[in-house]
């Protein structure tokens, strides 16, 4: 339970980090808060030869709230957003989901972008990104590119990020008028990974539900709004489409049932919260 050997580079600027990443490519891992990476290193599920620490890069420490998106830099810790009293106004779904991410003792160090990069299928922040239709801002020495959340996550803990790229920031649309947001999760204990997590965005007759913990990545579905005909059937189709599997934590059948019930409850809550 100790990491294998690696070199450690503390980047002082974005250019330094990208230069090191360009040289090392797939042998390198980006170290931000370390709350997803260190367990992987300790269990030797990851054996990079070099870690590039980006927490000293000033330009990635910013949360930019200008315009109609919330842009969260690579070095922004989860606790910084959690303690922001305005967050619920800017993006209520993120504010609702953050307390479910790990524990206070991991949110104090873990970053938002780090959780996105890790791409655990039952993690809350990737789910929020997908539910809101956010974007991932990738950067390498060669280029910058922006991917939609749906195009970024490609499978179980795998993403479209290339070896010489890092997530410089993510952007989430700010709360829109007449739109309701809600987040719900079922786990054995608070702070455990979700058995099923649901994030709902409801605007008028348009209802969207994102589900984590079932498929190999967060899944998004457009559904009839609560009160409209056909919601139960659509939820049932969605639940089956996720190809749930049995594992130590829950059966596939239980997961499908949670998608149906928790999905409905989350959508109904979003309707009630509509501003």
């Amino acid at each position: 339970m100790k990491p294998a050997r690696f070199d450690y580079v503390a980047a002082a600027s974005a250019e330094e980090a990208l230069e090191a990443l360009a040289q090392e490519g797939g042998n390198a891992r980006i170290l931000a808060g370390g709350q997803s990476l260190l367990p992987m290193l300790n269990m030797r599920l990851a054996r990079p030869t070099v870690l590039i620490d980006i927490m000293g890069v000033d330009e990635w420490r910013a949360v930019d709230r200008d315009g109609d998106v919330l842009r969260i830099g690579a070095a922004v810790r989860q606790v910084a957003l959690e303690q922001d009293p305005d967050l619920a106004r800017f993006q209520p779904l993120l504010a609702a989901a953050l307390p479910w991410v790990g524990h206070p003792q991991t949110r104090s160090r873990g970053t938002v972008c780090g959780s996105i990069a890790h791409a655990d299928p039952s993690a809350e922040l990737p789910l929020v990104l997908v539910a809101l239709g956010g974007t991932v801002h990738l950067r390498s020495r060669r280029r910058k590119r922006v991917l939609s959340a749906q195009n970024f996550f490609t499978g179980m803990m795998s993403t479209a990020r290339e070896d010489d790229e890092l997530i410089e920031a993510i952007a989430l649309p700010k709360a829109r008028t007449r739109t309701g947001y809600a987040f719900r999760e079922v786990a054995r204990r608070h702070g455990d990974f979700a058995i099923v997590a649901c994030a709902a965005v409801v605007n008028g007759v348009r209802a969207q539900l994102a589900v984590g913990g079932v498929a190999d990545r967060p899944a998004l579905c457009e559904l009839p709004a609560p009160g409209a005909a056909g919601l139960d059937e659509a939820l049932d189709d969605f639940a089956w489409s996720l190809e749930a599997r049995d594992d130590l934590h829950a059966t596939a059948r239980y997961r499908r049932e949670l998608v149906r019930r928790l999905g409905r409850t989350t959508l109904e809550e979003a309707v009630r919260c509509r501003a």
Partner: protein
Amino acid sequence: MPRLSADCRHMVSFTLNGAPVSGEAEPRMLLSDFLRYVVGATGTHVGCEHGLCGACTVEIDGQPGRACLTLAVQVRGAQIRTVEGLAPAPDRLSVLQECFREHHGLQCGFCTPGILVTLDALLRDNPAASEPEIREALAGHLCRCTGYVSIMRAALAAQQRLGKKTDA
């Protein structure tokens, strides 16, 4: 840009419980191991080593964090506080520690250092923390002996006693 080689040990210095400490560490050395084996501060315990159990929780720059999910080289220059820093004097327990003793908040004591660090920070930063807030903070810790009832009792007693102290 400075690159610390995997094959060498590197000087790591930070402030531990108010006093400067330094020692040598390979880049891969965890803060928990640095504290225990290099500094010799064995109050911080090591349980699961992947962030679940909470036994290794220490305060890093004012916030509780997992020492097993932090590299020693990451905390160069940081302020670290461990369970050894809680008691006001070698022969006196802190109010929180005293309450743990009175209310049987520990049996084997393995998880206790981490729990004390978390609760100490919580009661300092949020003296009026509600019972659910205390539970939420404790959710980041596993205790396999007492169950959590007596731990909660100790935490609430400490909160009350600390509250009276500041009123006076």
